[in-house]
């Protein structure tokens, strides 16, 4: 940044430069895998310091041998499957009087052991002495989790049948073929061997088969799934293409980080400028090169707060309806004040003629130097405050960046999608809604599991801001308490320039129409009603495991009357409620606690389902798909634009050594995160923005419904007019 004076640029020139920079810094997924690059097994191998890649010559040789072995193994499996195919044909003549029975339940010995797993696909297989597979029977578990698989007693006792087993299959996402045919992917989840000699006719009982199947964790109040081992014992897995794409895009970034860490360790004079220079150029760096000072200006500030990664919630100021107000309340969460400043932030904006917001006032509450102890001290800054105004805006950018990461990104999409994913995979199997949703809810639990270790908790974020691990958990917990599908629509645009909100609403309408068409389609409609019990159980799991509903004290006083009901006297018109929890609705209660997520239905029987239930189902499905795709894409892919330059924005600011503390200039490098955290932050924003796989339009895994892609394609230009390229919208939350 060369010139602290803000440049008021010609509007057309500015828009032109903006478009150029957006195009120039657009993420390309082109890099080819170089045989000399280190290797990365999967996302779970990344680390904040040094990822578990393999770079040395002997390591690479060893890795080459390992890869050769892995390729040989895959080749062997391919040949094996060719020679010994698993055909769909049922061998023998199954006799209903000779059955294998059992009872599927969730959980392990001590937990959750009575809940039946219904509609689980099961198959009875045998293997011959020469290796061939013979399917003897197939069926599904009933509503009580019980199954009965008839088989041919005499066939199973043929001399060449060597082994017999029952396999329970997880009903996964739908695989769509080019000709429009689609079928669910069945993945073997558990295998129970049966001694051939024990099959003597009439009924053989496998007893109670407990499936540790999408179990809810008991060590956290958040709805999270148990993952015992990310690579070997997880309820989901990344597709092979994902790991390859991750590796080829991630490795160059990792090498850059490693170089910086080495330079820091050897004290080789690494600078912030060099850090930024070494990583791929982002939007703000590009803009600064073309129009120095532009990104520190008020116009840019307002534009990014509205339409950038921050995508702030613009409420009207209750005291002054002409102004818009954004508030970040950090003082409710546990923090340490040793190094990092984290004041509460209030920003006020007015709308310009072009509809973009312009900041008019910023209030910071809390210590701004290491010596200050008063947590309630307020200081207000306006554009007349020059340098202080610049510093205040910087603090606001950092606060908004952190809020976007924790509230919008991690809680609002990742953890939010996970609660729907768990309930979906636990309960939806035969219902066509299973095929509708699972493609979009895949992989999120795996990436969240990795994020637990390296990002939140004792991961990166707590090392780069004042929040403690407990504080981060509190943020996520409270945000989750505000998220509900019922009554949700994306944020209402506050002006014609609010492209983020307009794009969100357009996308919502596209997805809603797609979901409606799907549910109302004659092929699906009756089947949805026939298997409505799955929807009921899905809804119950969702509500029973959701966090308590949360509304902060300020909003409780401002929005609710003495009886806890939403005020309807007009005094709440300042509050943007379209994209927030519907406070007029009664919260469902579980064990006396009001829960955040609403029930989709209270009917177990599809014959009693009403139009209102179906409408709620459409709403809920649209919400899930929206959050997992657009919601995540926006907060994830824009990270690179808005936190891809250390001095411009980071996730935390230190008090610094100067007399003004965190209010010092950007040139005071004791305020920005230290060099290590800075390069790590650049690594994060690049990794999360660049290592993409699984886009709706690219449809790499052929699991995106073609109708959705058609709907989106029809609106491609409309989205482009709102600066959104539909090719970057991911089909699931997997990074």
């Amino acid at each position: 940044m060369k010139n602290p004076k803000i440049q008021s640029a010609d509007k057309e020139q500015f828009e032109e430069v903006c478009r150029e920079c957006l195009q120039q810094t657009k993420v390309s997924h082109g890099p080819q895998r170089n045989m000399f690059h280190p290797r990365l097994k999967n996302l779970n191998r990344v680390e904040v310091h040094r990822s578990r890649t393999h770079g040395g010559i002997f390591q690479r040789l060893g890795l080459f041998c390992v890869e050769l072995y892995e390729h040989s193994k895959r080749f062997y499996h391919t040949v094996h499957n060719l020679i010994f195919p698993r055909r769909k044909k049922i061998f023998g003549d199954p006799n209903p009087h000779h059955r294998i029975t059992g009872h599927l339940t969730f959980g392990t010995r001590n937990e959750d052991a009575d809940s039946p797993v219904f509609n689980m696909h099961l198959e009875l297989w045998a293997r011959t002495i020469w290796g061939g597979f013979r399917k003897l029977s197939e069926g599904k578990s009933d509503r009580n989790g019980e199954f009965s698989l008839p088989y041919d007693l005499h066939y199973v006792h043929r001399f060449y049948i060597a082994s017999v087993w029952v396999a329970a299959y997880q009903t996964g996402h739908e695989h769509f073929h080019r000709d429009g045919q689609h079928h669910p992917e069945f993945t073997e989840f558990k295998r129970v061997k049966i001694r051939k000699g024990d099959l003597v006719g009439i009924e053989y009982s496998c007893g109670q088969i407990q499936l540790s199947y999408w179990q809810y964790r008991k060590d956290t109040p958040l709805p999270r799934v148990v993952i015992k081992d990310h690579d070997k014992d997880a309820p989901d897995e990344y597709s092979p293409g994902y790991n390859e794409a991750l590796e080829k895009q991630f490795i160059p970034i990792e090498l850059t980080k490693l170089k910086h860490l080495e330079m820091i360790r050897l004290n080789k004079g690494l600078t912030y400028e060099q850090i930024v220079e070494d990583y791929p150029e982002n939007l703000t760096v590009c803009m600064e090169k073309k129009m120095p000072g532009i990104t520190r200006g008020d116009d840019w500030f307002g534009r990014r707060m509205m339409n950038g990664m921050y995508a702030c919630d613009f409420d009207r100021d209750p005291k002054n309806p002409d102004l818009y107000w954004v508030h970040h309340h950090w003082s409710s969460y546990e923090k340490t004040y040793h190094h990092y400043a984290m004041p509460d932030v209030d920003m006020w904006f007015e709308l310009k003629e072009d509809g973009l917001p312009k900041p008019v006032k910023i209030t910071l509450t809390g210590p701004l130097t290491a010596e200050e102890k008063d947590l309630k001290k307020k200081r207000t800054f306006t554009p007349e405050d020059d340098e202080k105004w610049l510093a205040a805006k910087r603090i606001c950018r950092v606060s908004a960046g952190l809020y976007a990461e924790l509230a919008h990104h991690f809680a609002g999409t990742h953890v939010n999608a996970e609660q729907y994913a768990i309930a979906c995979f636990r309960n939806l199997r035969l219902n066509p809604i299973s095929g509708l949703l699972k493609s979009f809810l895949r992989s999120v639990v795996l990436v969240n599991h990795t994020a637990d270790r390296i990002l939140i908790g004792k991961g990166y974020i707590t090392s780069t801001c004042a929040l403690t691990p407990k504080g981060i958990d509190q943020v996520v917990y409270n945000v989750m308490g505000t998220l509900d599908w019922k009554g949700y629509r994306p944020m209402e645009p506050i002006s014609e320039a609010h492209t983020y909100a307009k794009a969100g609403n357009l996308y919502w309408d596209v997805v809603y129409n797609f979901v409606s068409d799907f549910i109302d389609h004659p092929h699906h409609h009756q089947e949805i009603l026939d298997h409505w019990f799955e929807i009921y159980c899905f809804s119950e799991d969702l509500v029973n495991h959701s966090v308590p509903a949360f509304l902060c004290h300020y909003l409780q006083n401002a929005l609710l009357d003495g009886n806890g009901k939403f005020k309807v006297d007009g005094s709440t018109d300042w509050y943007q409620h379209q994209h927030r929890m519907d406070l007029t609705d009664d919260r469902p209660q579980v064990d006396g606690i009001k829960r955040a997520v609403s029930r989709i239905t209270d009917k177990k029987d599809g014959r009693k389902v009403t139009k209102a239930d179906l409408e709620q189902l459409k709403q809920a499905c649209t919400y899930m798909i929206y959050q997992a795709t657009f919601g995540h894409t926006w907060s994830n892919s824009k990270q690179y634009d808005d936190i891809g330059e250390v001095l411009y924005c980071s996730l935390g600011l230190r008090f610094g050594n100067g007399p003004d503390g965190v209010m010092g200039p950007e040139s005071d490098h004791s305020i920005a995160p230290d060099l290590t955290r800075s390069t790590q932050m650049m690594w994060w924003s690049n990794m999360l923005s660049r290592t993409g796989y699984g886009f709706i339009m690219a449809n790499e895994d052929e699991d995106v419904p073609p109708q959705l892609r058609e709907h989106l394609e029809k609106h491609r230009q409309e989205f482009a007019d709102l600066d959104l390229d539909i090719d970057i919208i991911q089909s699931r939350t997997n990074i």
Partner: protein
Amino acid sequence: MRSTGIPVLSSIHTAIHRFFGILSLWIATKAFTWALTIFGSIMARKKMSHNNGIGATGSIRFVDNPEFPLHPFFEPGKVMPCRIRHAAASFMDDAMRVVRSMSIKMADTDYKSPMDIELNTGETALFWSIASFFRFAKYKKTRFGMQYEEYYRKYPTGVEGAQVGMRRNPTSFSNLKYYSQTPYLYVAEDNVKRYIKYRTIPAEPMPETGLLDDYDMKIPTENQRILPGETRTRNYLKDEYVERLRQGSVKYKLQVQLHEASDDDDDEIFNCCRKWDDASHPWMDLAEITMNKPLDWTESTKMIFSMKNLPKGLGTIPSYSIYDYNSLNFLRKHSDLARFARLWTIKIFGMPSEIPDSEVRNC
């Protein structure tokens, strides 16, 4: 147009399968019989089951006006000498929860007889073929009055059979109902092939005792132990029967159920774990059995009942593999070697001792 050709390949296929089925049936029977002979009869001087019993002697009289087509053997009004033996299927303690049995010999001899019938309490059985019987034997694992735990866990049909068959502390052998469970052949004078099942009930209507109540149903099936605080002795039921016979005769009715064979009969008609519907297969009186005198331990133990002692036309139904429902009777019919070996061993080494009224229970 439907083909009128003979399905040669299909017939050859069936013939091959049948051949190997019969071969396995023969091998399994022989192997089992020899194993039982050596380890049961010779080494232990015991039967495989039903060692704890009491015999009696009396007569059998066939009814005058039977309601069904007669076999020449069942001559109306015919009276024959008769022996019966009541026993517990397992364990040597009458107060344990076990299946009870009644074996009928239509002669006053230890072995030779024109007709023997073996019956147990419960209309359905615990196993249904040689294969399932072998599993039953394999998973026995008796310990402290508990057995077949793994068998019951794997085979719910066995549990059902045990629950209908076991009796807890009946007041007398004489008021129980006993069933053949497996069907036999029945070719009457009209030469129509039928299948027959037998049962005995008390001659006078009276409630059956010892049926498992709600409390007993909650006890795991494998637990056959006596109830806490049990005061009945190990031989109480045998003693009661002896005393009953001293005071007067004990009468039973022998009844039959018939099923007319047809080409499209489901194999399930031979399944001894499924009862025939009473409405379409009513029970009809065949004979009245009158017992007058008890037999002592020696006489009771020496008796052999055999499925070879069946008149022509009343024999066992052919079976074609160890999974066949009729294979059980095949096994019973061809294991006389073990029975005779036990007798010879008893002659050489002496009679096994009577069951004492000791405090050692649950065995």
